[in-house]
């Protein structure tokens, strides 16, 4: 369903070339729950940007749902993001002046077919994340966990191929984090493909598969059950 082949991403900073990704091969099948782990500078954020079609690789091919997305234009990538990717960010990224419902509607506003049914579908998505009673609340009237649930509803509203979460619990306390991760488990159980980028083993433990990054390369790819019991807290894997 998702296949990366020889992906590299180079940035030029002054005279230096930084190899943020240095030949990544990765395949993720439908309904997988993958955690991408790595310390800062490992290239996991760059990988997430490419997986999320926010960025294009310098080299290599990325095939998503049979479509070659690595050579698409900015406009085409926008459509792919709209139809196939649901983003969950560490800092929620809700628009402060809009109600929860309007925030969830946002992807459908830019969707070819979803515009007409946006309110109905946004309500359904809010039901899915258990926020049907907070539909008309603005982000500042919601708790952190509720905000992230709204963001997840927004990510789900257009039935994405992949739910792509970047440190989804980074701004939440441990209890709320557990609730959010539990929601992810439920979504996964319903068949949702989920990719979580994190440096926390506690988060990665919820996944079924762990991909470890270091220096722009995949250094390990194993079942989440193999995560060592010692790897807790925020230390991660060096």
């Amino acid at each position: 369903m998702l296949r990366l082949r020889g992906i590299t991403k180079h940035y030029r900073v002054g005279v230096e070339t930084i190899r943020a990704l240095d030949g990544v091969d990765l395949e993720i099948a439908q309904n997988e729950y993958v955690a991408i782990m790595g310390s800062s500078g490992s290239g996991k954020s760059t990988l997430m940007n490419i997986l999320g079609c926010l960025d294009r690789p310098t080299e290599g091919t990325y095939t998503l749902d049979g479509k070659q997305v690595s050579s698409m234009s900015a406009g085409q990538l926008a459509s792919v993001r709209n139809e196939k990717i649901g983003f969950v960010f560490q800092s929620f990224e809700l628009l402060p002046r809009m109600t929860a419902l309007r925030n969830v509607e946002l992807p459908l506003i830019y969707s070819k077919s979803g515009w007409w049914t946006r309110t109905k579908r946004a309500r359904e998505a809010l039901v899915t994340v258990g926020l049907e009673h907070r539909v008309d609340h603005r982000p500042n009237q919601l708790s952190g966990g509720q905000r992230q649930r709204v963001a997840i509803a927004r990510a789900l509203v257009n039935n994405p191929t992949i739910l792509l979460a970047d440190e989804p619990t980074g701004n939440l306390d441990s209890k709320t984090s557990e609730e959010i991760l539990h929601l992810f488990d439920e979504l996964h159980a319903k068949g949702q493909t989920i990719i979580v980028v994190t440096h926390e083993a506690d988060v990665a433990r919820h996944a079924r598969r762990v991909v470890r990054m270091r220096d722009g390369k995949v250094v390990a790819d194993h079942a989440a059950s193999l995560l060592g019991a010692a790897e807790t807290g925020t230390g991660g894997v060096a």
Partner: protein
Amino acid sequence: MGPIRLVVIFYQSVVLALAQIWSNKLRSMLTTTGIVIGVASVTAVIAALTGLQTRVLGEFESLGTNKMWIFPQRPDSGPMRTAPFTAFAFRPALFDDLLANAPSVRYLSRVTNATLNVKYESRIEENVQVAGVEAGWHKIENRSVTMGRPFTVLDDEQSRPVAIIDVKMQNRLGLPRDPVGSAITIGSRRFVVIGVIEEKVASGFVQDGISDSELFVPFSTLYNSRRGGQQLPFMYVQGSSTTPQAAAEAQSEITFYLRKVRRIPPGEPNTFRVEFVSRLVDQFNQLALVVTVIATGIVGISLVVGGVGIMNIMLVSVSERTREIGLRKAVGARPATILLQFLVEAVVLCLLGGAVGLLLGYGFAKGLSAIPGLGLQSAYLPLWSVMLSVGFSAGVGLVFGMFPAIKASRLDPIDALRHE
């Protein structure tokens, strides 16, 4: 992208723009001040000018836009420059063949006038303006004869002692309710009143030689009575062209004819002058146009200033909403959609300013028209100026909103989401 999708995106952009402007009410108001003032001033100027124009043209209209006058005139140069008045004064016979030679001229009337004492029974009115006109004058001057009959060609040919008066003169002389058939003395001659003519509406802008007259007699009757000795009575000619558009044509025909009859050698100036109402109208319209263009130009400058303000605030808006733009892009907004959103916001902002300006300007014009004595009672806003203002405002929004919108559309979603 289908047309329905385009409409949806456009609608979405307008809704977003209005929400954005509403949530920044004070800022939006301050930003659009330049546009408001620009549009308000052009609206007020155009409304006032249109009112003035309506009034002046209305007066010209009531005068008859195909009306013309031919006056003798001493030229500024050439041998006739120092000639005595008699050398170029008109004589009645000069115009005998004019109608036959000027197809664009419909009616002609030789006109002369005199100030005479008028007497009816024991009542004497002194220094009355008496005008001598021909039968054609009735056709040129649209004043109906309410009682009795108008002048005929025979009245003139036979120099009959007949007179037409208006109601004012009728009252001044104390003539009976039906004065037709009454005898009055004009100067030293007895005249029979043959008709009553409606009064002339006084014009504030155009004075014509006999407009004050209240008493009319046949041209030849008055002209011949004043002839004698070396003195040549003053006369001029009034006429009308077949249509208002034919006035220029008529002028050149008259000029050609008179130069030929008067044997003016080529290169020498005319010894007469042809005036027509439609040229006065043209001159006035030209003046009005110049004022409009200048006003519009000044307003254009203020709109550019307003536009710079719009650009500034849009740049601030793009910078403030960088994260929002990043998020919108992440969830699928195309660069073109973002561009449209910001462009529409700038245009809507300017259009709102333009609308407020229109209202202000209209109110100002209404206020002007309410002041008596300004002569602007008919001040109003022509549709074209409304459209011009709306178009100008939208144009300013488009032009000055383009750069910020392009900037927004080109933001990289990753950088934008990282923006603090």
